[in-house]
């Protein structure tokens, strides 16, 4: 069965890159544009893993991760954070919020797939 990935990113460019990369790697992909939409989509999506950006309007990545971890049904889902230049402070905050791991930008398809493989069965 195809693994399902939920991506949350406000940048159309990055969303498209994620979509192409994930589809090429044989994942099923669902996308949301910010944290609020991410939480909405999550309810019926039942993804295997979530990839989220940090800087987003309405609800940022930290808030989104906390929201997922509060959700009885999805709290154990692996969440990967897209961060820039291995920014230690952001990584730290993402971890506190409950992120499983991170992918360092600039966006690299290999790194992305690799990280997803690491946190999913």
């Amino acid at each position, binding site marked *: 069965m195809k693994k399902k990935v939920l991506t949350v990113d406000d940048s*159309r460019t990055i969303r498209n890159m994620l979509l192409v990369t994930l589809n090429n790697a044989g994942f099923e992909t669902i996308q949301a544009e910010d944290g609020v939409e991410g939480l909405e989509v999550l309810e019926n999506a039942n993804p295997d893993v979530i990839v989220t950006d940090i800087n987003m309007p309405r609800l940022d990545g930290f808030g989104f991760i906390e929201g997922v971890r509060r959700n009885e049904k999805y709290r154990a889902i692996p969440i990967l954070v897209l961060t820039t230049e291995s920014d230690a402070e952001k990584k730290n905050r993402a971890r506190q919020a*409950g992120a499983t791991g991170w992918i360092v930008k600039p966006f690299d398809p290999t790194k992305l797939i690799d990280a997803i493989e690491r946190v999913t*069965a």
Partner: protein
Amino acid sequence: MDMNEIKEIFFQECEEQLAELESGLLKLNDGDRDPETVNAVFRAVHSIKGGAGAFGLDDLVSFAHVFETTLDCVRSNKLEPTPDVLKVMLKSADVLADLTNAARDGGSVDEARSRTLIRELEALAHGEAPAAAEAPAAKPVAAPHKAADPVMEKPPVNEEGFQPIPFSFGDFDEEPAAHYVPTCQVVFRPKKELYAKGNEAVLLLRDVSRIGEMSVYCDMDSLPPLDKMNPEEAYFSWKISVTTDKGEDGVRAVFEFAEWDCDLDIRTIEEDVAADAAEDEELPMQPVPFDLSMLDEAGPAADEEPAVESDAAAAVAAAETASKVAQAASRAAENAKAAASAAGAVQANQAGQTIRVDLDRVDRLINLVGELVINQAMLSQSVVENDNNGTSSINMGLEELQQLTREIQDSVMAIRAQPVKPVFQRMARTVREIADITGKSVRLITEGENTEVDKTVIDKLAEPLTHMIRNAVDHGLEMPEKREAAGKNPEGTVRLTAKHRSGRIVIELADDGAGINREKVRQKAIDNDLIAADANLSDEEIDNLIFHAGFSTADKVSDLSGRGVGMDVVKRSIQALGGRISISSKPGQGSVFTMSLPLTLAVLDGMVVTVAGQTLVVPLTAIVETLQPEASAIHSFGASQRLISIRNSFCPLVDVGRILNFRATQANPVEGVALLVESEGGGQRALMVDAIQGQRQVVIKSLEANYTHVPGIAAATILGDGRVALILDVDAVVAASRGQSLKQETSLAATG
């Protein structure tokens, strides 16, 4: 979708982000201190940086990074967004736009300027005030070559003290000398937080097994009896022995995501010891009750608080980051508050759902609807012609069809309608640049940015508008000292307004400068042989002289507006859009330029007339009134000129058939109809046509693709009966009547 398409999307997105960035900065400039505004500005730059990084656009990334760092200081209230700071930021936004364009179109950027700004931004990020009297040293001189070296030399340090550390995997190569493959002994004891964050011990063990030969022992000693067991607690730990050429660091890399939430001890052991250890571990490797489903149950730990605490503790352990974490936490709280307060507004904005459509598709639809309109008209006509006692149901159906067609047409046109906002925003930059260069202090006020108009009109509006803005600042506004001496605010104001008025869009550009110096204009016109030295001109006529070709009142040709492009070019481009431009000026109080443009270039309301057996369409917007001339009102003037008197004023009579060479001699005015039209420059002319057929909306079909430009004819259309009718270029006809006749190729067969 391939990478090129995504790149195209990226540049589209950049446009949007740059617009967002600029409007945000302008809001801040106006004193808006809403944290969400700052966040939006930060996000815009951040997004551009993120995408640029993915495409390897290094120049863009490095500049965006410096910019972002400084914006982050504003976001965290370390830097007060004073007007001076914002000035630097607005300029940076301009450079960012230049870099984006250069990345897309391969053009060059002004590197001196971007380097200066990088320095200024870095200075701001380090808490230095911007130089008060900034010399406009960064004159935009396009660098001839795009230099190979990136704009930024050293990696910048952001306010967290974060600095990218060069990291090399070369270290790994040193370790495995010869064929020695080290064995690592790992003790891995997950905390419950590890599971709470979605990590999974089984997966980590799987990954360890992938880097080398692994044996594993699960320690379940701390597992309590079932009734005492907390399903969210972590009770297991593992002892792993792995032989891998990736060494200790390779093993540690596997635990990269998990190392904060577990006790992890990794050590390399000697080969022989490793062998012993491996043997020792053979025994405990016996099947142990190791239920994976139970592990899954244990995984999701709900309570977050311990997680946060322990993580915070870890952060403290990480020594110097501690205080930064506190800062981060307080900032998070702030952000959350800001997000909450702004949520309403943002949601309101997002209520209007949009989709993105390729312009070609819309254009195809518009073309089809145009055909539909023509077809519907033809159908109506043939029903009327063939069935004079037509049943009422057919007629009613036709009427409904007509109404629907009209509605479809309007809706399709609405798809192409876009707010003028992007063009207005571009003007803000133009004002900044020229204010910098001229040393004038200028404030641009825009109103009615959301006024919508057809996209083609918008696209073609930018150039004339830019030129007019330059003129307004360069020639219109006085130097600050002069303004102060005249008792005005030293800061000049340029006001750009858009509004809808009777089916057209009216754009006004007003400055509060000195107004037109009529004496000077008049003298210049005489010097340039535009008018006779003794010509008696009204103020309005003098003002309109500035639209004449080759006219410039500036004593010295300045950098910006003196590019050999005069207001005549502006006027021509506005006319090419089917628009009109006029000026009104008050000495000492400033000038107002008013442009009136059609909302769309695809259809127009026209009056269908007959001239010498040909059917022509005259744009309704040009017509002031129509009248039936009486013989007593016609007066001859000179050899062939005739005037018509209308309510005690005389107006030149222009025979359209003669001008277009449809006939060799002038028609008798009394037998025809006169269309009173307003021509450029304020004067009126009476156009003579033979008869009026009616008034209708016609679909404009350009002739230029097939016939090049036809003087006197703006375009063509297809009428209901299938015939082609030419659309009259009123201004060209009026100009031709003034003396210079249209070129010979004018006489074209008008029927198709």
